């Protein structure tokens, strides 16, 4: 018994440690202004707009995880640039969930829904990304020696790896076997066509109209708004855009778009002898038409001077790469080499692959909750929860008398733990409490209270079987523990399954249900049981005071065998052994009587 008491004290210490640690962490967060004391609310309670989009491809091709992430990236960039604060963009299965606080207008929705386009445009001018760095170059200067080139001969940024990017023919790559889109893969030598300046086609300076040049000069790539995307320009005219490398680009018309690209991937860069350089490259695979067009374009670009030998890859109105071309590339494959790491190469390959998908985003649901309605739903949920809690307390008071204080105490501890977990999760993992989540919490009151009921009823059963209170508690715990764990395991299983598989509000519900199930186990093990062990040592409970809820008399137990020699008022019903004993005694008496009768005779 001393052992049990010790274990009980230890459990309570642990509980205190958990509570203090959780509370301390939260207090620290609140004091240092890192988080609020109240958990963050989801849109249905706080008000806001939630748009669920699912990506649909027009040609039936698969949308994989990487594409989905790209779509999220694109949307995040657009939303961030549009100035909406605290937007949350997440994926659920194959869907993209965009949650915007407040009441964003329909333009925001249009911005989100717009599909991202991939374009290949020839570079005409490159400059540092700030609006004041370069003077507008002479738009009519169409010779190779323009004023701009002298100012910044090549965009040679110190850090940016993309500046080293160059396209090269795919035949050199041993790691990517050609899907042979065209008849044969042959090494094409650079066709030294005469660089007749006026026939530069899409690379011609004539695309840089006065208007465009002015726009180019004014463009400031150091501010987020310049990356709003969405605006991909008229494909048949020139275009200015910022690059993710911090430079701004003035480009000719679109020569190739996403439809011309089959796919893209990345691999280790290898030398012509087959050795690895330790760097990575991005491999592009074109469709038949795309490959032809690409050959034509690269052949022209190869003859031009920097920066017009560069090819800007524009995704959603942002230049994601602008490699230079050394020779015309035939064969429907190309690779971009530079100082790529595995991560940066993968990122670029994913962006190009995503851009190549004929993807559109279909609005599955668009939900705007006004702040008034949200607040009202929260209030209704809290009122319902409060009433429910009070009813449970009253009922258990009737049922378990003083013991119900332990029930209420346990519920309070469970409530505190739940609050701490949700507040901390809201801080650490950006968890948002939704109405479905609140409902889960209310339902959990009943399920948590049930653990105590199972336990207390067990204790009563053991008392009925004639055990003393400490022994009954000890015995009942061993059995109730198993039941509580088994049933909580089923609950947790339900919660996890729902959370993993379901979409939308169901997840919020499953989350709180799972959380409270875990907390239920914690509370029963670290509070209810240890407290009952300690209480069972007190006079009030051990002697079965009639308000203790564990009064053996109300439980129908007459005095029982209590220990050596201290016996026993018998219950009305005879036990099996008693009955047998009585029968035997009667028999024996009869025999005895017969015997003595004989003896007498």
């Amino acid at each position: 018994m001393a052992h049990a008491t010790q274990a009980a004290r230890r459990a309570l210490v642990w509980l205190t440690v958990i509570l203090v640690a959780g509370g301390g962490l939260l207090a620290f967060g609140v004091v240092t202004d890192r988080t609020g004391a109240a958990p963050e609310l989801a849109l249905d309670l706080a008000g806001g707009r939630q748009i669920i989009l699912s990506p649909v491809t027009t040609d039936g091709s698969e949308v994989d995880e990487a594409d989905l992430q790209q779509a999220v990236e694109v949307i995040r960039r657009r939303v961030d640039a549009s100035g909406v604060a605290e937007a949350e963009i997440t994926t659920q299965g194959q869907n993209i969930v965009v949650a915007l606080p407040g009441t964003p207008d329909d333009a925001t929705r249009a911005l989100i829904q717009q599909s991202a386009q991939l374009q290949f445009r020839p570079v005409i001018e490159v400059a540092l990304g700030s609006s004041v760095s370069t003077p507008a170059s002479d738009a009519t200067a169409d010779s190779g020696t323009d004023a701009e080139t002298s100012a910044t001969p090549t965009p040679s940024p110190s850090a940016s790896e993309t500046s080293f990017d160059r396209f090269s023919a795919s035949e050199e790559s041993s790691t990517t076997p050609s899907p042979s889109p065209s008849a044969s893969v042959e090494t094409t030598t650079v066709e030294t066509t005469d660089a007749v300046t006026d026939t530069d086609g899409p690379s011609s300076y004539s695309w840089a109209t006065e208007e465009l040049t002015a726009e180019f000069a004014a463009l400031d790539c150091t501010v987020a708004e310049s990356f709003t995307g969405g605006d991909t320009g008229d494909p048949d005219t020139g275009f200015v855009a910022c690059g993710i490398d911090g430079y701004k680009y003035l480009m000719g018309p679109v020569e190739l778009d996403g439809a011309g690209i089959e796919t893209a991937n990345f691999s280790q860069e290898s030398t012509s002898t087959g050795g690895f350089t330790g760097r990575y490259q991005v491999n592009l695979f074109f469709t038949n038409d795309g490959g032809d067009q690409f050959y034509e374009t690269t052949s022209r670009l190869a003859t031009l001077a920097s920066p017009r030998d560069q090819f800007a890859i524009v995704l959603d109105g942002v230049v994601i790469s602008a490699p230079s071309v050394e020779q015309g590339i035939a064969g429907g494959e190309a690779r971009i080499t530079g100082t790529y790491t595995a991560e940066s190469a993968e990122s670029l390959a994913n962006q190009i692959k995503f851009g190549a998908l004929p993807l559109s985003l279909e609005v599955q649901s668009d939900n705007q909750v006004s702040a008034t309605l949200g607040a009202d739903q929260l209030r209704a949920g809290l009122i319902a929860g409060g009433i429910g809690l009070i009813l449970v307390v009253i009922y258990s008071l009737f049922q378990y008398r003083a013991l119900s204080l332990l029930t209420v105490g346990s519920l309070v501890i469970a409530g505190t733990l739940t609050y701490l977990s949700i507040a901390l999760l809201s801080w650490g993992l950006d968890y948002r409490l939704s109405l479905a989540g609140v409902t889960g919490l209310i339902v959990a009151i009943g399920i948590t209270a049930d653990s105590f009921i199972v336990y207390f009823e067990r204790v009563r059963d053991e008392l009925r079987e004639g055990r003393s209170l400490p022994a009954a508690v000890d015995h009942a715990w061993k059995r109730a523990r198993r039941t509580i764990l088994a049933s909580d395991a089923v609950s947790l299983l339900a919660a996890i399954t729902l959370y993993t598989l379901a979409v939308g509000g169901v997840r919020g519900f499953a989350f709180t249900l799972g959380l409270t199930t875990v907390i239920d186990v914690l509370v029963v093990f670290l509070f209810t049981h240890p407290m009952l062990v300690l209480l069972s040592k007190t006079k009030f409970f051990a002697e079965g005071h009639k308000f203790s809820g564990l009064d053996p008399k109300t439980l129908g137990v007459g005095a029982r065998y209590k220990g050596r020699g201290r016996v026993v008022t018998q219950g009305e019903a005879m036990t099996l052994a008693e009955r047998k004993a009585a029968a035997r005694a009667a028999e024996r008496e009869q025999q005895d009587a017969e015997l003595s009768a004989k003896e007498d005779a």
Partner: protein
Amino acid sequence: MAGLSSWGNALHSGEKSYPIVQRRALWFTISGVLMVLSIALLLIRGLTFGIDFTGGSQWVVTGSEVTDTQPALDVATEVLGDAEARATELGLTDGTAIRLQVGDTTQEQQGEISDGLASAYGVTDSDISFDLIGPTWGQEVGAAALQGLVIFLILVTIVMSLYFRAWRMAVAGLAALAHDLLFTVGIYALVGFEVTPASVIGFLTVLGYSLYDTVVVFDKVRENTENVTSQKTFTYAEQANLAVNQTLVRSINTSVVALLPVSAILFIGSFVLGAGTLRDISLALFVGMAVGTYSSIFVATPLEVALRGSEPRIKEHTAMVLAAREAGESHVTVREDGTVQVGALAPGIHKGVAAQPRRKRRGH
């Protein structure tokens, strides 16, 4: 409440006992009829699905002085022409709100309706909530829920089979589960409440609760029948019935405690607020939890006993017990109505020297 605990004592000792397992034919008939009715209701009346499943648009206007639904309908007619539109008044904890539901709309129409409602009710954009659901979204949500359900059932079967080391218990538990879900859905068809994602959450919780409750009862059944074949006094069915009776007080307490908060939500949701997430979820919970408690006692355990009854080992044992009883070899208390009293074995009493062998008499 001493009444409930002394009733509990009588149930525990077997002094009082309800022939729940023995009367299983009756419960199966009742449940069977209810199931057939539920299915019939589902087939005839069907379920009313909310716009989350059918697709469509919905607006809720809050904070308006006007509480008439007519302006909303006028706006809908103006923008959409003859298309079907429904407007209802919703209660809030503070004032009322107007809800307008229409079918599919284009983005321009949505904007026009929003603006129309704002001017008709004299509120600003920020007082208007809306919900636009694409036609395929509902199917997707439904399919996801269904997939979750199937995987959950498979997992539960495995866990229960492992835990109880008896697949029959898993089968009986699942049957009770199907019973509860079908009945709850049947009530929805009967009452005509809309099935929304919130009610689906409710259905799924019912499923969790039903199993939870069944596990608690089965745990007692297992405990009582653990060594059933090593004694000859009681049959498997009798011990299982004792288990049900012994957990009866627990079952009642549990369901009351679980139902109290739910009925609070249902009350607030239905009478104070009107249609909404709270009402949708709580009706499913209320019906499902009540039925879940019933089925753990009256469906799951009797079914489990019926299944076990066909097991040769149990069959043999039952025959043996009954034969022994017939021959008068077993010491059982028979009640006035002829049933056998099955109770928790009370501990023996210390008889002191009376337990010692009797000294033989000398001197004859």
